[in-house]
């Protein structure tokens, strides 16, 4: 059964078509990698799937309910069950909010609370801080007091707070120091496993996608040019484009 579905979704910015007729189905529990060169439309696609932007044509569905074209006040069901981790925690965390309010923000929205069975905010805050390995006293501090990796953990904690079914991560480590990337990726992998999350994972790092995702779509110029099980796509790429992407990955010779 699919939890997330896009039907013939297109999005233009001015005359420029960023997405051209995308069809996509994501099943419950699936871990989908989204790869493709810069400007392929990956971020544009996930914004549409997350109801943060509207398609010019086509429809987006979540759990058999239509998302596209729906007014924000009716999107509580989506906000409570689909969360995003953005690329750069320096811009995805409000510098003037304490970490505690940042993380509990999804729990304070009336629209979201209507969908949740009484989550105690303080208790949940403690839980998610522990899940991402941040000290309990982080809640009273401001984002700028944390390192890049810690800030991305804060963003992950916020995404987990409403106990979502679907987690979308848009290049979650590309803005981080190389030395902490693996830690954050491993944390994400653990959490997805433990919470049984459906994952959409955008990345330029094909090795990580292969490690983390069971399936993958390859995007180019606003279209999906290849899709399938990740092992299959990476072992036997069908298009020259995917072959080229894969060939560009530095590998240790065995």
């Amino acid at each position, binding site marked *: 059964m699919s939890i997330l579905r896009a039907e013939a979704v297109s999005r233009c910015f001015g005359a420029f078509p960023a997405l051209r007729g995308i069809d996509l189905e994501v099943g419950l529990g699936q871990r989908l990698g989204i790869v493709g060169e810069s400007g392929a439309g990956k971020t544009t696609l996930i*914004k549409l799937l*997350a109801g*943060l932007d509207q398609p010019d044509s086509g429809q987006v569905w979540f759990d058999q309910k239509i998302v596209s074209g729906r007014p*924000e*006040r009716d*999107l*509580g069901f989506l*906000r*409570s069950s*689909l*969360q*995003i981790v*953005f*690329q*750069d925690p320096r*811009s*995805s*965390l*409000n*510098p*003037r*909010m304490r970490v505690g*309010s940042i993380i509990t*923000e*999804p729990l*304070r*929205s*009336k*629209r*979201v609370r209507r969908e949740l069975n009484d989550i105690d905010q303080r208790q949940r805050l403690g839980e998610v801080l522990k899940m991402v390995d941040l000290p309990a006293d982080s809640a009273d501090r*401001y984002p*700028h007091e944390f390192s890049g990796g810690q800030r991305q953990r804060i*963003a992950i904690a*916020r995404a987990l707070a*409403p106990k979502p079914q679907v987690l979308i991560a848009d290049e979650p480590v590309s803005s981080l120091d190389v030395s902490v990337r693996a830690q954050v990726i491993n944390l994400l992998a653990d959490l997805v496993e433990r919470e049984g999350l459906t994952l959409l994972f955008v990345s330029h790092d094909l090795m990580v996608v292969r490690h983390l995702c069971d399936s993958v779509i390859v995007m180019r110029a606003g279209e999906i040019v290849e899709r399938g099980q990740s092992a299959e796509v990476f072992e036997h790429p069908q298009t020259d484009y995917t072959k080229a992407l894969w060939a560009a990955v530095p590998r240790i010779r065995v």
Partner: protein
Amino acid sequence: MRKAQLNIGLVLVGLVILAGVLSLLWTPYDPIRVTSNRLLPPGWPHLLGTDGMGIDIASRLLIGARYCLIVGVISVGVAAVVGVPLGMLAGMRGGWLDELTMRVADIVYAFPALLLAMLLAAAFGASTGTAMAAIGIATIPAFARIARAGTLQVVASDFVLAAKAAGTSRWGIAARHVFPNIAPLVGVQASVGFAMAILAEAALSYLGLGTPRPTPTWGAMLRDAQDVWYTQPVQALWPGLSIALAVLGFNLLGDGMRDVLDPRLREVK
């Protein structure tokens, strides 16, 4: 260097506030009653001398500080309370509402504040109130513009997108995300606006379009000093110096605040 600016600004502004508050409780002499001790030079017991009506200048300066604060607070307050929400609304909604707000702001901005003051004075009689209204209305566009510019920047950031994904309402985004992040800009604008309001009020009083006699505002004192300019130029020095230092103080304060209020600039790692 920045720190020094802020400190000098704080001291000057502090002095104006101190003088204004003090004038509520005490002045060395009656600041209004005419006496026969005209045009005494600085000395004792009239520290800064007396003016052409035999009134103690130090006492008048203290009262002037009070009026400059009142005019500044109310005119800047009105401008900010009207201008900031308008600018935020324009920035968050965009589209025709944004266009309309900004065109109106352009028109108000282009309308000479002096003409507005004259119109208000003609309609209601010149008073502190008409001066404050004229200055306040003329300053609304500055606040609306700065608030809109700041809002556009904040609204484009990922944390606002994250707030939407968290189901936060427009109001919540305006109150918790946009306003706190544009507050430093607004604070700086308020300080600079305060300086401009002091100057404008002095000019209006000087022209007789502000606070009427016998209330001693600094602008009015400057006007009185003009009568004896060739024989007693020092009479113009005191109100002139007061205006200059107060304006400088609020400008320095605004500049200094720009840095201190922004936590992102404190992050030096």
